[in-house]
Structures are given as C-alpha cells and as structure tokens.
C-alpha cells in the first residue's frame, strides 16, 4: 500500500524525478503545489473510495449471504449516478449543495428495488442478475439523458466511468468525514454481524435485534457507496473483489474482515489508477474501466465457483397460458408494421411524400427502413433462442457479453490497425463475439450449460468487454468518432447493399433457428424430462447458443451494438402467444422489426436533420417496459 501510494504520487504530466519530488515537496514551490493540490487529493480520495466500496461490499455480502453482492452488482452505484445526472439536469442548484443526498436517494431507491425484485431469500444468482438489469436500466437512462441534454451534462463526464481526478481538497474534505464515520460504524457492527452470519434464527435466539442490525448495516453500506459515487462516480468491482481476497486469505471475524477489506480496497483502486496511467501516460483512462478490466475475469471465476456450489436457479419464463389466437396476433402486428413502415417511408422529419420510388427516397429511405426491419427481426429471434436455451427471461446477446465483446473486438481492430476503414469493423466484432462465445462454451461445458451459470459468465464477460472498449476508446483518441457512432448502434446510411447482406444473413440463419424450436419446446419441461424424451440436452444447448450468437453477431455487423430488442420483443411475444417456440419466433420477430423500424423513424425525425442513434431510442422505449416486467416477475 505504501509502495503503491508512492508510485501513485510520482505519476503525472510534469516530469519530476523521484529524488526531486522527495526533496522539494517539503519546501514551498511548484512541486509542493502539484503534490499537495493535485496528486495528494487524488491519492487520498482513492484510498477512501476504494476502502469504502470494499467495506460496503463486505457488509452487503454478509447481509445477503451472497458472495456476489456489492454496490455495483446490486445496481446501487448505477442508481446513485442516475440520480446525480437527473438532478444535474433538472435541479442544478440542488446538486450544487447536496450531491451526496441526491446520490443517497438514488442508492437507497435502487437497493430497495433490487431487494423487492429479487425476493426475500436473496438467492445469489438471482440477486446478481436483477442487480445487473437494474444497472443496465439506470445506465441506459443516464446515457439517453446525457444525449438529450448535452449542454447541461457536459461536466458530468467527469463522473461517468469513475475518475479519481481531483483539483482541490473539496472532494476529500467532503467524503472523508462521511466515509470515516460510517466505516467506524461498520466496525461497531462487526460483532452483531458475526452473530448474524450464523443465521437469523440463531442470532435472534441469542437476543439480537436482527431487524435493527440488518437495517443499520444496510444503511452503512448504502451511505458508503453513495458517498463514493457522489465524489468519484460509479466504480465497480472493488466491492466485489476486495472482501473475497480477504476471505480467501483466511481472515475470520467481521472486525478483521472489514479492516482488511478497507485496506485491500484502497490498494486495488490505487493500483488500478496507477495501471491506467501506465497504459496511457499523460491521459486519463477512467479508473472505473480499469477496475472492470481487472474485475471482469475475477467475477468470471467467482461466478463459476458460486454456480457450482449453489442450487440451480431456473426461472419461470413467464408467458401466458391462454394465448391469443396466433392469426389474430400476427394480423394485428403486421397491420401495425405496415402503418409504421408507411409512416417511416413517407416522412423525413420536415416534409411528407408518398412518392416512395423517387430516387431520393428509394436510394436512402427505403433501404434504411428495410434494413432496420430485417435487423430487428434477427435480433428478436436471437433473443428467443438465447432466452429459450438459458431458460432465463433476462438473457439476450448483450447480457451474454457477446455484444460488448463484439464492440471491444471492433475497437481493438481500430487501435491495432488505425488505417483500416470503418467498414471493416464488423470483422473485429465477429472475432470478439466468437471469443465471448468460446469462453461461455468452455466454462459451462462441464456444468451441462446450467442456465444461470451461463448468464453469470455473460455478465462478467460483458463487464470486461465494455471496460476494454472504454480503455481502447481513450487509447485511440479522436480517430474513433465514426467508431463511437457505430458502437452506439445506428441504422444511419444503410443502403441497398446492406439490405442484400441482411437478407442473405437472415436466409442463412432462419432455417436452423426454426429447426431448433422443437428441441427448445422440449427443453421447457426441464432438463430431466427433456432427456427422458430422448433429447440430447447438451447438444441442443450448444447449437441454440451458437445459432443465437451467430444471428446477433450478424445483426451487430450490420448496425453496430443495438441492445434491448432481443430482450424486450420475446417478452411481449411470450405474453401474447405463450411459450411455444415456433409462434414465438414468428411473433417476436415481427415485433422486433416493428420496434427497430419505429426507433429508426423516431431517431430520424426527432431532431431532424440530425440523427439520434436508433440504439439509444430502443433503450429509451425498452427500459420502461423492462422495469414493468421486472415488477411483474415477482
């Protein structure tokens, strides 16, 4: 820790040798200024924030009896950050005075949400998944707000992915006391927590006021997390990793665990910061991205271990038992589609035209709308397959990490070969997605593709992929403007070649997808029944995974990373036509097409002649529905 702190202090843009620093820091002057007003606050805030997150994680893990709990996996960080952004936009004066209170409200709300949705038993994998979805919700809402209120949120990028940059002591002098007070409070709670970890019954029979202790412990964890978010932004994985390392080292008893967690958390955050500045000297790499980069693989390992020891957590897929007649559903959806497509073809944001064959419309608008439709269909079908095979209503390509690894792969290509045209980015995406799939297949093979394990692996890979993308974006600097648009998912400037490609890919994959539907239907009865019926469960899973990932990668290669379609469309379909996969594929395909055509249309006309990436619009439409769904799934 001392060593790392020392290295940390020597890093910076002003070139001072170590001896210079050591000598001159004691006398007034430039070196002292730099060390005292820039580098030292950065170091101290790093120590405080890392420690606070680690302690919060340790407390949460005990509370939920869940090795995967932490402020970031429970969505607390994302919630706090979302509230900071909201108040920045709508109540700027409030934030100026009470950023902490705002973050706290967000943190409390999201943790209540997660606890409500995940159920009382706090089953680890379920909690982690719910937390992940809540994080996803808040993150996409934050992203949308930032795009729509660009001017008001400019300074917020400071926090966006977590940064330790400090320009004075304000951050430290604000967060320091809060963190220290609540850390001490946590230490006071150490004894009751020891008792609590024996089990609630034993604890209450020993005369402990379990409810009070629990409530207090939650409060401590939430306040610690909120305090860090309000100063350094959402930083993930520290709270997950640090307590584990401590436990792995054989430390017992909460007093020791908490103390050492604090230390390890500090070391890890400072270490990540040091590493980030080593990767790109003189430039800021978000420290949050660095922790995710290190933490992703760790979570992968942890998920693997947890899933092995914990009960398999299959979830009900939902879906109505009284399906609406298929012909009726299809007729309605097709009718809606026709309406939106003709709207999309007729209106460019300022003027209406019905001459669809006019060169302007025919060359630019028609292929764009068609591409959006086909890609929407493909994304939705991939969603159906992936949800079916994982028996997890929350699965989709983005949750499996395929999408984010695809993005990372594409960025990697751009960084390694800067001269390569943007058109070749999908190549990198295919490689990235293949790696993600490879990891999932490799790690889950032995466990017979236990659905929850696969989903957890996906979360870890996804975190790693998006962190890698972030770091690569910083590395590639300005040249990535075009890449960023692609990354956010765009149906912009799709021509007839894209339509051809989309049709080709669609034709290639639709056959296998339909072929798989029967086996997937059998799988819904559960692995044992399915095996009893003569189905090779394992090979069905492998093939459905491969086909699902292939379809979504194909879609990504055309329009970039558009999420949510594959998540939302199958849900709506399931509520309409039940759980049989063939009708499900048809209906959700149509719904997916409808969704993306609508998103493309809205994105085109909302701030015409400018364009909003359709990926963002989909997220805006998709999140409220997902929230509603999460509530329903109780």
């Amino acid at each position, binding site marked *: 820790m001392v060593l790392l702190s020392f290295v940390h202090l020597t890093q*910076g843009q*002003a070139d001072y040798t170590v001896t210079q620093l050591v000598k001159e820091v004691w006398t007034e002057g430039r070196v002292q200024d730099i060390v*005292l007003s820039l580098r030292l606050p950065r170091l101290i805030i790093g120590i405080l924030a890392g420690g606070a997150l680690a302690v919060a994680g340790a407390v949460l893990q005990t509370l939920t009896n869940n090795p995967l709990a932490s402020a970031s996996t429970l969505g607390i960080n994302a919630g706090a950050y979302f509230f900071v952004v909201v108040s920045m936009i709508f109540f700027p004066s409030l934030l100026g005075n009470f950023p902490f209170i705002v973050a706290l409200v967000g943190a409390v709300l999201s943790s209540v949400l997660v606890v409500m949705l995940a159920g009382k038993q706090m089953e680890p994998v379920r909690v982690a998944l719910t937390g992940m979805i809540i994080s996803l919700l808040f993150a996409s809402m934050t992203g949308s707000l930032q795009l729509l209120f660009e001017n008001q949120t400019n300074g917020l990028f400071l926090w966006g992915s977590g940064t330790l940059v400090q*320009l004075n002591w304000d951050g430290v002098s604000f967060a320091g006391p809060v963190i220290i007070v609540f850390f001490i409070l946590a230490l006071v709670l150490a004894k009751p927590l020891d008792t609590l970890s024996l089990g609630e019954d034993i604890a209450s029979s020993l005369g402990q006021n379990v409810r009070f202790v629990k409530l207090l412990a939650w409060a401590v964890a939430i306040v610690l997390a909120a305090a860090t978010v309000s100063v350094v932004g959402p930083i993930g994985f520290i709270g997950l990793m640090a307590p584990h390392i401590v436990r792995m080292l054989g430390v017992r008893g909460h007093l020791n665990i908490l103390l050492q967690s604090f230390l390890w958390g500090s070391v890890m955050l400072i270490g990540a910061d040091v590493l980030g500045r080593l990767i790109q000297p003189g430039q800021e790499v978000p420290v949050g991205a660095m922790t995710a980069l290190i933490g992703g693989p760790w979570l992968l390992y942890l998920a693997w271990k947890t899933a092995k020891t914990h009960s398999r957590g299959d979830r009900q897929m939902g879906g109505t038992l009284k399906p609406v007649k298929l012909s009726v559903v299809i007729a309605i959806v097709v009718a809606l589609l026709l309406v939106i497509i003709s709207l999309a073809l007729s209106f460019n944001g300022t003027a209406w035209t019905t001459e669809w064959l006019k060169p302007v419309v025919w060359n*630019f608008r028609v292929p764009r709308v068609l591409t959006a439709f086909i890609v929407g269909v493909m994304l939705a079908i991939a969603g159906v397959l992936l949800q079916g095979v994982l028996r997890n209503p929350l699965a989709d390509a983005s949750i499996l990490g395929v999408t984010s690894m695809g993005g990372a792969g594409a960025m990697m290509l751009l960084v390694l070969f800067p001269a390569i045209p943007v058109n070749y980015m999908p190549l990198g995406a295919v490689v990235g997605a293949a790696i993600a799939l490879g990891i999932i297949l490799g790690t889950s093979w032995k466990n017979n593709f236990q659905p929850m394990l696969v989903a957890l692996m996906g979360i870890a890979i996804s975190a790693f992929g998006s962190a890698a993308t972030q770091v690569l974006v910083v590395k590639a600097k300005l040249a990535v403007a075009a890449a960023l648009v692609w990354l956010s998912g765009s149906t912009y*400037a799709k021509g007839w070649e894209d339509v051809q490609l989309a049709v080709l890919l669609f034709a290639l994959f639709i056959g296998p997808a339909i072929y798989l539907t029967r086996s997937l239907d059998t799988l819904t009865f559960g692995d044992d029944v399915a095996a009893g019926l003569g189905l090779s469960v394992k090979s069905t899973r492998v093939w459905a995974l491969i086909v699902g990932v292939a379809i979504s990668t194909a879609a990504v290669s055309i329009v970039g990373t558009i999420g949510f379609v594959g998540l939302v469309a199958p849900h709506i379909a399931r509520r309409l036509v039940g759980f049989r996969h063939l009708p499900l594929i048809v209906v959700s395909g149509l719904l997916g097409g409808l969704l993306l055509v609508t998103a493309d249309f809205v994105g085109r006309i909302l701030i015409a*002649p*400018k364009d909003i990436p359709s990926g963002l619009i989909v997220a805006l439409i998709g999140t409220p529905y997902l929230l509603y769904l999460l509530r329903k799934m109780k």
Partner: protein
Amino acid sequence: MKKSLKSLLFLALFAVLLVGCSSKGEDKAEDKGKAEENITITGVNGEVTLKEPAKKVVVLEWTYAEDLLAVGVQPIGMADIEEYNNWVNIDAELSKDVADVGGRQEPNLEAIAALEPDLIIGTSFRHDGMIADLEKIAPTVIFNPYPEDEKMDLYQEMITTFNEIAKVVDKKDEAKQVLADLDEKYEEAKTTIDNAGLKTKDVVLTLAYTGPQAPEIRVFTPNSMASIMLEKIGLNNIHIPDQFELYGSSTYNVEGLAKYEDANYLYIVQDEDNIYEKQLKDNAVWKNLNFVKEDRLYDLGGDTWLYGGPLSAETLLNKITSTMVSK
C-alpha cells in the same frame, strides 16, 4: 507614403504568391482544365471532374464552408450550422438561406440529395466511409487536413485546398486576393507584435474544454496549422510533443502546463465551459504558474477557430494582436 508602401508590399507578396502557387504541382490539373474546359479538382479521393463550375455546393465540414465564403460564394447546404456559429467567427456572413443538412459526422443524406447539389465537399476523417453514398447524390471531393505524413505542411495543405475549392466555383482571382490580404495581415501582425514590447515571444497556444474525465487542455504542436501561423508573425511555439500528433495537439491537464510557465499563454475557451474560471480558479498549481502570476494570459475568445481557412486565420491574427498589445 504609408499607402504606397503598403501597395508595394502587396505587389511583392502577390509575386511571391504567384511563384508559390505555380510551383506547387497543381499545374497538371490546371492544364487539363484548360484543355477540355472541364474543371478538375483533386482531393484525397482522386480527381473529380465537373463540366462547369459548381454553383450548388454542399459542405460537410466548416473549413470548406469558410473557404467558399472567403471567395464570396454561399454554399447551398451545410452541416452543423448552429455549432459553426458558436465556434467560427469570420468576417464573411453565412446566409440565412443555407440549408442545414444535419451533423458533420452523420449528415442527412436525404437532405443533401433534396438540394440537388453539383458538388459535395467532405473531410477524410469523417466521410471516407460514406463516399459511395455521397457520390450517388453528386460528385464528391474529400480533403484531408490531417495527413499521416509528419512532414506535410498543414498550412500549405490549407492553402492548396482553399485554391482547389476556389477553382471549382470559378473564383480563382478572388482567392488570390484573399491570400494576398492574408499575407499582408501577417506582415502587419508581425510588426505589431514586434512593437508591443512583449517580455517574451515564446508562447503556447491552447484550447480547453471539459473532457471526458476532467478539464482537458489541448496544447498545439509546431506542425499544427495554428502554430505555423504563430511562427509567421514572429512568435515562438515552445511546445514540442514527444510523439507525432496527428491532429496537431497534445492533451494535457494543468500539471502538464508547468514546463511552459515562462511563455505567454494564449488560450481559447468557450464561455459556458470556462475551466479557468470554474474548475481551476482556486487551484494552487494553476494560480502559481508564472504566466498566471505575471498575468501573461491572453484570451482569444471561444469563437476563434484554429482549424479553419484563410478567414479564420485572419481572425486569429486579429485576436492575437489585439489581446497581446492591449495588455
């Protein structure tokens, strides 16, 4: 007396310019143009030939709009007009009738097509990927203001592009005049700076904004266009980057400025994102930098565009001379 001196100077510059122009390898294109009466201009995407001078031009990058305005031609359509007005401040006014064709990164193809242009002008780092789409609408020429070749003179690239654009709208004479005026301006500015009695002619030129992480300060490198302009008026840019910077600037935070504290600090910052008044105001490092303590800060205003054409260059010169002399 003064007037005649001026015109003499003007003549001399003119002559230099002519020599300069004719030796710059444009001869080939020019000869061709004369032979077939077609107009051929050369961008990084090769030669583009038009049957007659372009009347309706769509520009997808501000610099090229500015180039057109400098020779008295209004584009028919342009990208990001609102932002252009925030950042670019030149004498020539952009007409209210110019159609906005969307963002510079993702211009609205339909809007461009609806204008039925004769020519589209784009820039390499944004529009290389969509040349095929643009060419479906109209002949398209792409210029690259940031060549990968470190030895390229970016200032010369700007002049060459300017002349090419002037040629395609049949305003070669006007272009000559603009460049002659600019050269005259350099001389004037140089004299002003010489007489201003500055403590040092060493400068760093910066552009600051709130970046993805914190206040970011772009410090311009000697190969950047703006820096070449500074050298032309006798100022000395002392920032030498460690590595080749494609876009002509290194990104620093306040700590990185320490090594330049003895120079004059020329800066550009937008009013609503003034990091010097907001984030850095109470920062000890910033406050104790020599150029801050000795008040050698020169605010060039948010709308001095360092990536523009000849008219932006004039604005830059005016701002530099007026702020440096008035202090």
